[in-house]
C-alpha cells in the first residue's frame, strides 16, 4: 500500500524553504536591491514599493537603518487597503570602496507580524585603483624611488595617465606596466628633502568613463 509522506515531513519540507516576507497585509515588490556606484559619487537612492493587500489600514511605525550610511524615508505613515507606497532608502556613497550590506527594518502596527528587513547591497568600485595610497621614507632611509600601482578596472581602458606632486621636492614619473590597464607611478623625493610632505594628483583618462582624479600622499622624515 502506498503511504503519503507523513505530516511532520511535509511541515519540515515547508520550513526548509527560503523565507518570504512575513507581513500579513503589506506586499513588497522586492526586499533587496543592489546599488552600483564609484567612490565620491553623490548619495544613491533606491525604492522599495509595496501595496496594502489587506482589508485594514496599516501604519508603518518605524524605519530603522542598520548603519548611519543609510537613511530611509516614506511619504506618509498610514496606507489604506489597496493603496500603494514606497520606502526610499538613501545610501551615502562618500569615499566608500567595496561591497556593503545594510538594511532597513520596517515595523508596522499589525499585531503579531514580524518586522520586514529591506536589504541594500551597495557595490562601490573605483574605475581605477591605487595601491598604496601613501609612500613614506624614514629618517636616514635612501631616497630611492617608490612605486604606486594604478590598476584600471575591467571594462575601462586608460588612454593617458598624469601624475603631478604639489611639492617641487618630490618628482613623479608614470611607467606603463601593461598599456591601458596597469601603470606604476614612481615617486622620488629630492636627496636633500627632509620633513617633507606632498600630495600627488593623478589624472586618468579612461575610455569609456572619461577623466578621473585620484590622490596619493607622500611623507619624508
Amino acid at each position, binding site marked *: 500500500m502506498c503511504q503519503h509522506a507523513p505530516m511532520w515531513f511535509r511541515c519540515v519540507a515547508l520550513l526548509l524553504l527560503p523565507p518570504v516576507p512575513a507581513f500579513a497585509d503589506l506586499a513588497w515588490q522586492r526586499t533587496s536591491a543592489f546599488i552600483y556606484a564609484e567612490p565620491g559619487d553623490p548619495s544613491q537612492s533606491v525604492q522599495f514599493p509595496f501595496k496594502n493587500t489587506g482589508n485594514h489600514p496599516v501604519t508603518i511605525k518605524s524605519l530603522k537603518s542598520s*548603519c548611519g550610511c543609510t537613511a530611509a524615508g516614506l511619504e506618509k505613515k498610514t496606507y489604506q487597503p489597496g493603496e500603494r507606497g514606497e520606502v526610499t532608502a538613501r545610501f551615502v556613497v562618500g*569615499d566608500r570602496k567595496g561591497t556593503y550590506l545594510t538594511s532597513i527594518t520596517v515595523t508596522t502596527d499589525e499585531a503579531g507580524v514580524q518586522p520586514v528587513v529591506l536589504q541594500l547591497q551597495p557595490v562601490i568600485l573605483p574605475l581605477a585603483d591605487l595601491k598604496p595610497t601613501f609612500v*613614506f621614507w624614514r629618517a636616514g632611509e635612501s631616497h630611492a624611488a617608490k612605486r604606486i600601482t594604478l590598476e584600471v578596472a575591467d571594462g575601462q581602458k586608460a588612454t593617458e595617465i598624469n601624475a603631478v606632486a604639489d611639492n617641487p621636492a618630490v618628482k613623479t614619473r608614470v611607467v606603463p606596466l601593461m598599456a591601458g590597464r596597469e601603470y606604476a607611478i614612481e615617486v622620488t623625493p629630492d636627496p636633500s628633502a627632509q620633513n617633507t610632505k606632498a600630495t600627488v594628483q593623478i589624472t586618468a583618462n579612461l575610455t569609456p568613463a572619461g577623466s578621473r582624479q585620484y590622490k596619493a*600622499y607622500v*611623507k619624508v622624515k
Partner: protein
Amino acid sequence: MKGWLKQAALLMVLAMLPALLGAWLHPRRPSWQSDEITVTGAQALGAKAIWVDARPSAEFEKAHVPGAISLNEDAWSELLPPLLDVWSPEKTVVVYCSSLSCHTSREVANRLKDEAGLSPVFVLQGGWEAWKQVQKGDK
C-alpha cells in the same frame, strides 16, 4: 553506537588534512595575530598610540577619546591627510567606533592597512562604549 563514534572520529581526522593544508597554503587564510586591542592595552601604549575615531563626524564632535583624529568613509580623502601627518612607523594606530557590534572601525582599519600600508593598526575591542566604561571605572 561504538561504530558511529569511530566513524565520527575518522571524519574529524580526515577533515584535519585539508584544514592543515589550508592553514599553510590558502590565499585567504586568516592571520594568527589578532588585530584587536583592549582599552587597557591601548592605554598602555601611551604616546605611541594614535587614536582614530571611525564614527560619523557629528558623534566625534560631541565627544571623543582625547587627542583622537576623526577618519570615516564618508569623507575619507579629506580626513586621511591629517592622520598621515602625525603618523610614523613607531606609532600604533588604534581605531574605534561606537561599540562591540559596530563594524565601521574594522572597515577603516582594513583600509588603512590595505590602501595606505600603515602598520601596526588595531581595532579597539568594545569601541567608544568600552572606553567610557573604563573611564567610569577609573573614577
